């Protein structure tokens, strides 16, 4: 193989409170498709941002074509031949396809823009990648997939040596993915080095030559894809070394399965999750296992009515219900702590107390405010029970640490006394102490008869507290496993890697 077009060595990058990258090395050769793999928070985005000049690394060396280079900014990166196409295309939807390809460097004739040449050259460029499009059409009228291809065409025409595709396939359907891949193969044949980020394992195995795996900001390794089984890849991403099973015997508490709370029959949503059948019982902890993008959060959002299902029926003990929105779900006794605490969960500018009473207050209606005394009593008892720190109800939530913010969010739902509590990654990004506290709390809540859905990327955690584990992959529910004490992370990894036994 030729010399690498790009080499990153010993890259470290820290942000206040987080070491996002620690001594990571990365190589990219001309004419290869290289997968960058890792769960959320592994450091993929930071690495890409260092590469595109958005962040400057604290330490480490970037070499492009054997020349030490300091990438000063996105524009500079582009000039060095590094182009990026993001999942959200950042082109101008109100301009034509051709204009978007040539924006900022329009061919001119006698000082005026040469439209004929723009359109002709745009058509040629597209044709070279096997695309036949009307280049005068507005970009906004094209599908997202086509927009992405146009962004790629633009990047390639900018003499890109390195093309970074950051989750380009997450909103594409199968046909569109195939088209993208055929374009990628042509570019590869032309000697372009492609860095490809995707959460879909199948796509990684279909298109990539090699993969680099990151975990928790550190480098796990670089592997030719042919030498790495899916099982190994998943294990390396999640850090579940298959030998570390010693804690399993403390396993799950006794199952006291109560009445059926919810039954999902063929509930699904196009582009989010294929139809699912699922029963949820009182007193039972159901774990959702799967990689990011597997549909685990999407399914949770459907159960809470945060997104509406386009197929299927949800039944409660009293018959079918239409969960048209979160409010309807709350009225059914369902509570949901979303994965994105800051964006979807808490109101950062309000106090701990206001955030905690919010959902209860909403279901009481605005005309029946909780009295000052009642609020102090409720909030005080939950601050104490969940050990929220600082224990001050009037502190602003944005000044709390991640773990304490998570507890505030939990408290918000616990005071509504829900029948079913859905927790999406409740322990992500919080320290080990708070993590254990939250796990214990979940177990004891289920012991008191609450139904819990527990979503986590950490299989050990899911195994430790769940009675039943739903395994999701590529937006499908592929298996339901009973956590009878014999189940190991290996089983789950196997299922994630292979899909259901029959597929």
């Amino acid at each position, binding site marked *: 193989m030729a010399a690498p077009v790009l080499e990153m060595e010993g890259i470290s990058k820290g942000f206040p409170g987080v070491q996002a990258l620690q001594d990571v090395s990365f190589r990219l050769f001309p004419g290869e498709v290289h997968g960058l793999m890792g769960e959320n928070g592994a450091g993929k985005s930071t690495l890409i941002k260092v590469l595109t000049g958005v962040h400057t690394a604290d330490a480490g060396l970037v070499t492009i074509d054997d020349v030490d280079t300091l990438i000063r900014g996105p524009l500079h990166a582009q000039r060095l031949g590094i182009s990026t196409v993001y999942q959200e295309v950042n082109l101008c939807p109100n301009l034509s396809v051709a204009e978007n390809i040539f924006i900022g460097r329009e061919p001119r004739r006698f000082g005026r823009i040469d439209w004929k040449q723009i359109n002709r050259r745009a058509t040629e460029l597209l044709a070279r990648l096997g695309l036949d499009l009307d280049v005068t059409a507005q970009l906004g009228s094209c599908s997202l997939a086509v927009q992405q291809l146009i962004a790629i065409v633009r990047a390639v025409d900018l003499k890109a040596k390195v093309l970074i595709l950051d989750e380009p396939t997450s909103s594409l359907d199968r046909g569109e993915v195939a088209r993208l891949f055929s374009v990628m193969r042509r570019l590869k044949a032309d000697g372009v080095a492609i860095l490809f980020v995707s959460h879909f394992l199948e796509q990684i195995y279909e298109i990539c030559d090699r993969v680099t795996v990151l975990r928790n900001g550190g480098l796990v390794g670089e592997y030719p894809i042919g030498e790495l089984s899916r099982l190994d890849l998943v294990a390396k991403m999640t850090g579940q070394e298959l030998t570390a099973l010693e804690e399993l015997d403390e396993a799950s508490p006794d199952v006291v399965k109560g009445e059926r709370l919810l039954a999902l029959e063929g509930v699904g949503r196009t582009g989010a999750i294929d139809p699912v059948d699922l029963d949820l019982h009182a007193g039972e902890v159901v774990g959702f296992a799967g990689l990011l993008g597997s549909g685990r959060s999407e399914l949770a959002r459907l159960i809470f009515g*945060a997104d509406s299902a386009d197929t299927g029926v949800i039944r409660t003990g009293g018959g079918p219900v239409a969960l048209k929105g979160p409010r309807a779900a709350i009225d059914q006794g369902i509570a949901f702590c979303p994965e994105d605490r800051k964006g*979807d*969960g808490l109101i950062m500018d309000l106090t701990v107390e*206001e955030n905690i009473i919010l959902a209860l207050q*909403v279901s009481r209606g605005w*005309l029946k405010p909780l009295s000052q005394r009642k609020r102090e009593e409720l909030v005080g008892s939950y601050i104490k029970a969940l050990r929220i720190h600082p224990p*001050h109800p*009037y502190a602003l939530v944005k000044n709390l640490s991640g773990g304490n913010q998570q507890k505030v969010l939990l408290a918000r739902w616990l005071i509504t006394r829900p029948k079913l509590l859905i927790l999406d990654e409740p322990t992500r990004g919080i320290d080990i102490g708070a993590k254990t506290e939250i796990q214990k709390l979940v177990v004891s809540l289920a012991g008191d008869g609450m139904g819990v859905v527990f979503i986590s990327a950490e299989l050990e955690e899911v195994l430790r507290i769940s009675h039943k584990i739903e395994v999701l992959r590529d937006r499908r529910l592929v298996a339901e496993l009973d956590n009878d004490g014999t189940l190991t992370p290996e089983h789950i990894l196997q299922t994630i890697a292979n899909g259901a036994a029959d597929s």
Partner: protein
Amino acid sequence: MNRADAPSRHLGILKHSLFWPVTVLIVMLLANVIFTRDFLAIRIEQGHLYGSLIDILLFGAPLILVALGMTMVIATGGVDLSVGATVAISGALACDLIAKGHGLPVAIGAAIGASLLLGLWNGLLVTRLGIQPIIATLILMVAGRGIAQLITGGQIITINNQGYKLIGGGYWLGLPFAIILVAVALVVTVVLTRRTALGLLIESVGGNAQASRLAGIRSSGLIVLAYVFCGLCAGVAGLMISSNTLSADGNNAGLWIELDAILAVVLGGTALTGGRFSLAGTVLGALIIQTLDTTIYTAGIPPRTTLVFSAAVVTIVCLLQSPAFRARFTRKRPERPADPVSTGPKQEVTA
């Protein structure tokens, strides 16, 4: 009212969010004493209160009212540019009906009803059609002036109705009626937002609409309510303005009052991005603006420099309000020793 400040109470009055607006207002009032010795004096003539302070309250009444409504809209993360037009429409409708011989209740009822409808229109444009508030209300800001002129037939309608005169120019219990009206509106607003959960829900929606939805809040109803309330406030302000002069001018009534109202809200410490709002702050902001106007007259500032003068004062007030600006001057000050009771990891206190 500002509960967020509670943990920092020991850091003193300087950190209170209303400290700077109050200080500015007091300084401006005192500055006026230099030009007019008896500026702060209040005298009683024929059982009515008179004086510059009363004048500021009286002339500022419509602005306070409009700014109260504006506060609720801004708290939801929106803005209402159409209040000036609503002021004009409301005044024009009432005067036109009175001029045509209808009774006061009909005239006032129609004006208020129209204002509520205009607010509802804005609210529906924002929530149902998802138009950005600044654009949605711009429609009515421009078109509303046209509607007002249609009602007045392009003329200035003058009427002679002493009952109507009471609203904006009359006295009741020794006080200008407009001041009483504003006081009642303020109390009702405070009770509605702070004695019920409405204020919390509005601050929640303005602070993070997505998270509010997932907490079960149906935000569109709340947002519509804010615009309707804002329309109502503007409508009553329109009655005051037209009643004070017993005339309706579709072209000039309430002209640019939306900008003064937005300024009042911002001076009062409510962020344009939505979320936390302060009604007391808004009232102070409106009073600062009105005092500034009065000062320009009493200090005898030449008319051609008034705009520059007010621009300068507003700039200063805004700078004083800005934590980033103040930090430049306070950064060097040594840290106060931490209160032994508050041993939290965060010493940083938000104002």
